[in-house]
């Protein structure tokens, strides 16, 4: 079945430590890939996106993600976490379609806590 998985439900890191959030998808072709962040009581904010080309993409707030076709993964990374990064992170996939609109498939989310 087509799906998006985020293996880690919750991660806790110390401020200043590095971070990697995992995302895997199961689609035949390379989909469009996104990472969103959601702070408590807020909507979703786009961190970065991948469609094609360079497999390492840079986003806002110092985040980056690397697409690995062989592993069907799109992991999110940040070299040094700030306390304000504590939030819920969603990996999202748009399976490639020929129609001009699309349905976003969200992963279950990873909750990030940051220890001062």
């Amino acid at each position, binding site marked *: 079945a087509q799906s998006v998985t985020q293996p880690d439900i919750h991660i806790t890191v110390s401020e200043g430590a590095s971070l990697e959030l995992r995302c895997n998808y199961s689609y035949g072709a390379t989909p469009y890939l996104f990472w969103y962040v959601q702070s408590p009581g807020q909507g*979703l904010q786009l961190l970065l*996106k991948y469609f094609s080309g360079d497999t390492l993409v840079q986003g806002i707030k110092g985040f980056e993600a690397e697409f690995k076709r062989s592993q069907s993964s799109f992991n999110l990374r940040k070299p040094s976490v700030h306390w304000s990064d504590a939030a819920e992170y*969603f990996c999202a996939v748009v399976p490639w379609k020929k129609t001009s609109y699309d349905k976003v498939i969200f992963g279950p989310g990873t909750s990030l806590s940051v220890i001062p």
Partner: protein
Amino acid sequence: DAMVIQNPRYQVTQFGKPVTLSCSQTLNHNVMYWYQQKSSQAPKLLFHYYDKDFNNEADTPDNFQSRRPNTSFCFLDIRSPGLGDAAMYLCATKSDIPNNQPQHFGDGTRLSIL
């Protein structure tokens, strides 16, 4: 600077009393979406409009309706809210040109049922 605006941010209604949530956008995007998000879960798509064409998800309860009177506005109507409808409701917009554009989300309306 807010581009997708949801009102109100917090809504309290009584069990069974109809409620309407609103979403407006300044992006002139032709696609608008409504999601339901419960605590610690991913957003769940309820329906979307592609221009004026309404697309309902198969598992969206009949209790949920939507209206899009023009490009800028979209409404979510819950005819008879039950306790299980308490959730965050997110509106999102997207331009389909080009097709690979991301969705832009509002800050949501948190709905409580008494």
